[in-house]
């Protein structure tokens, strides 16, 4: 029983998901689900922070180390921000209650994934975090393009999940156990190599890292921007934690894993950044930018335990401003030209978007800079000089396309723009995301101290 109490945050979110399904009916308010769920998620984050770190629970199937706790809190908080925004804006023309429930279920999966120490738990929580995402991506039932994207996402994601499961079965066959702790036994033989490669295929696809990123732009471009805001950010944090922990578990296997990670990193950085440049739709642009950021994350993940922590920190640093930008796209329209003249219409949001975009480029003092700093430090410490050189060059390229967004916001002209109605919850969500983007950079120290993160 006492061990179950340690899962209070997950249970709270799960409870919220179930409640959300009925909240609208019970209260008669169209967005009651999100209104109830948002504070519940904040409470879940607080509880997760209070519980802090614990060793193995449930016979070692789960464990709450520093990184897991950080990810758990981050997932719950980001979920809360997203829900808060939904409580103000809804999800387009569709009912929002199901979206709220789906996002919360996905978050439960993510939070479990972050603390998984067993292959079975990993797989189940991974599926739990991904399945609702398929539905969210195809949330507009009448939209053929959206459904096509969602179907593509579903098929590719299922395929890679199964490949991953196949890899997990190899790992089990070799080590005779599903516990991470025993994975060191997966030796450098052909079967072991295949096991590692298959597992990474699955995770790469979840992180939309090249060369398994093809579903991303199409799925994002067809989906409602509000869904993209969630799906492109929160599950990614959990995926990175799982990746980092698996990499650590597999460590000592002849360097295959490092090679695979670095190849994926290089490809993702190049493909993501170069393909993002010509995009004119915010969702496609952010899809490719997500691929690029996954590339940086893989680079950090290849750089030992310090790199692993840096990778998780970077995943959060990526998720916060990205979510904000997609939410903005959901309000203003997703073509880059739709953002034109935003500075005149909504100056405060326009300046907040400067903070988000500069953070994604990696300009101090925003969190993106500290993410890059810790990541490059870990990578250079591992002697990965050349790939770091590629990474920093590519971050300059990324500035090129983020500036296209900025340029539209500040210097574009749009005559037909309708003024978005005021929505206090949405403004609070933006404010929270902006504050986190700034504060995690300037006041990184207390946060790192609290979670005991070391790079």
């Amino acid at each position, binding site marked *: 029983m006492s061990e179950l109490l340690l899962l209070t945050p997950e249970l709270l979110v799960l409870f919220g998901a179930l409640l959300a399904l009925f909240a609208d009916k019970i209260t008669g308010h169209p967005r009651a689900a999100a209104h109830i769920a948002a504070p519940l998620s904040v409470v879940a984050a607080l509880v997760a922070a209070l519980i802090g770190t614990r060793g193995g629970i449930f016979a070692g199937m789960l464990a709450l180390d520093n990184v897991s706790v950080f990810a758990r809190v981050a997932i719950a908080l980001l979920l809360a921000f997203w829900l808060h925004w939904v409580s103000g804006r809804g999800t387009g023309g569709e009912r929002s209650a199901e979206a709220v429930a789906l996002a919360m279920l996905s978050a439960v999966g993510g939070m479990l994934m972050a603390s998984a120490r067993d292959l079975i738990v990993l797989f189940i929580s991974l599926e739990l975090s991904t399945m609702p995402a398929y539905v969210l991506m195809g949330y507009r039932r009448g939209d053929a393009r959206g459904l096509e994207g969602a179907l593509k996402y579903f098929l590719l994601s299922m395929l890679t999940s199964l490949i991953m499961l196949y890899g997990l079965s190899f790992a089990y066959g070799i080590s005779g156990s599903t516990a991470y702790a025993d994975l060191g036994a997966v030796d450098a033989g052909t079967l072991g190599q295949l096991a590692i490669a298959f597992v990474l295929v699955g995770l790469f696809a979840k992180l939309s890292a090249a060369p398994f990123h093809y579903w991303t732009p199409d799925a994002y471009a067809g989906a409602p921007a509000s869904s993209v805001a969630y799906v492109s950010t929160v599950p990614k944090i959990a995926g990175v934690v799982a990746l980092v922990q698996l990499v650590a578990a597999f460590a000592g296997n002849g360097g295959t894993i490092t090679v695979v990670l670095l190849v994926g990193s290089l490809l993702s950085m190049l493909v993501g950044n170069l393909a993002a440049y010509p995009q004119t739709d915010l969702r496609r642009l952010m899809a490719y930018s997500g691929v690029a950021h996954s590339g940086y994350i893989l680079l950090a993940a290849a750089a030992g335990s310090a790199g692993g922590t840096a990778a998780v920190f970077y995943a959060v640093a990526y998720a916060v401003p990205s979510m904000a930008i997609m939410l903005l796209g959901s309000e203003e329209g997703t073509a880059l030209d739709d953002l034109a003249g935003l500075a005149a219409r909504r100056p405060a949001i326009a300046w907040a978007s*400067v903070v988000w975009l*500069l953070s994604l*480029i*990696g*300009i*101090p*003092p925003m969190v993106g*800079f*500290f993410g*890059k*700093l*810790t990541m*490059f*430090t870990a990578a*250079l*410490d591992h002697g990965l000089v050349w790939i*770091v*050189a590629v990474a*920093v*060059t590519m*971050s*300059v390229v990324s*500035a*090129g396309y983020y*500036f296209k967004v900025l*340029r539209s916001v*500040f*210097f574009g002209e749009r005559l037909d723009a309708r003024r978005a109605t005021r929505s206090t919850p949405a403004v609070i969500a933006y404010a929270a995301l902006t504050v986190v983007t700034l504060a995690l950079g300037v006041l*990184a*120290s207390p946060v*790192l*101290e609290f979670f005991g*993160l*070391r*790079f």
Partner: protein
Amino acid sequence: MDFPLLTVIVFLPLLGAAVVALLGNARAVAGRVVAATVAVVDLALVAWLASRFDVDGGMQFVEKLTWVPQVGITYHLAIDGMSLAMVALSALLTVLAIVASWKTEKNPALWFSMLLLLEVGMNGVFVAMDFVLFYVFWELVLVPMYFLIATWGGPRRQYAAVKFFLYTLFGSVFMLVGIIALYLQTGTFNILEMAGAGLDPKFQWWVFAAFFLGFAVKVPVFPLHTWLPDAHVEAPTAASVLLAGVLLKMGSYGFLRISLPILPDAAAEWSTFIAALAAISIVYGAAVAFAQTDMKKLVAYSSVSHMGFVMLGIASMTPEGLNGAVAVMFSHGVVTGMLFFLVGMVYDRTHTRMIAEVSGLSSQVPVAGGLLAFASFASLGLPGLSGFVGEFLSLVGAWASDIPVGWVVLSAIGVLLAAAYMLWLVQRVVLGSPSAAVSGIADLSAREVAVLLPLVALTLIVGLYWDSLLRFTDPAVRSILAMMGGA
């Protein structure tokens, strides 16, 4: 704890920027008064600091707090004579830029808050003694400058602003790699502690290369200078003044504060290469300036040439050369600031910057014409004016050093070229009979003269009484050389 004077000097403009932004365009008149007041108070604080400054006291007014102890980052500010000269320049030019653009009508709240935000970055770079903090200020400068150019610039402002941003960012990300490499090697981000760490020469070479990219783009050194003419031509006057006057110096300051003391072996290895690039920059900048038909472009290319003397002085690694480098940095800030202001003031009246369309300023507008001639003389390095001091010392230093004589001679030819293109400019623009564009225009207003007078005074003071500047810079450069192991 002492009064944190440096913190106030750096962050007071941030407060001002916030107030100006919050006042908004509806209360822009109040906003610009706030902006001017903040900038003047900041300048006064710098003056107060200078009055309490002990020229032989090394690093002073030190403030050191932990910031992110997990990764060894501190909040560490300090100032020496070289930094003081640069901060003074930054604070002064900000005041003048605000006064000169007093009548800005397009989105004034944003304009003045961006100028103040820029000052935060400029002041901060010169007093930050922690690498990460230094990098924060270094990048902070880019954002307001991007907006200054992109919002108030000329027809190709978007292109120029993004080009400026991307070029500088390209350099600075490699600088970041260098910073991290140094951190991994020494275990600290403290710029001052790193000096004399006795790093492996081969390692130094690579880190020097990384920093070189960051600093050389900013200076700019040929062939990394191509962003500069675009940025200058498109930038509004006040932004041009600050760009040339202060931002370029961040690059050369980086060489002096970081590359030389921390990487002395590599610096010695690179010195001939840098001297060669410096000489090429000097002659190339001058030659291209010669060919310009646009006054602003001419001044922009003359900056490439003048900054070449800074690099030449740095490459010499002698006390004379380094003093000369800092003196050129200071003087170029003052003189080029004056030139950009004047070109802007002439443009406001004639609506053209084409040399061919402007002539006879001295007979139509004698004050403007006379000051333009004065600034041109200062720029070409007339003895008795500030431009001469640094270029002379740089050449002396280069001559006394191991730099191959050919490069020094080439640089000296650059002085002649500077005299030629500046005098030719004076002949065409200031002298002669008034052209159509010039006839009927009004002379400088009292406000405009007030902007230029401090710069005229500084040009004369530094030019006639060298010690007024060198007493600050000399101990600083000698300590840099001492850190290099008395090279």
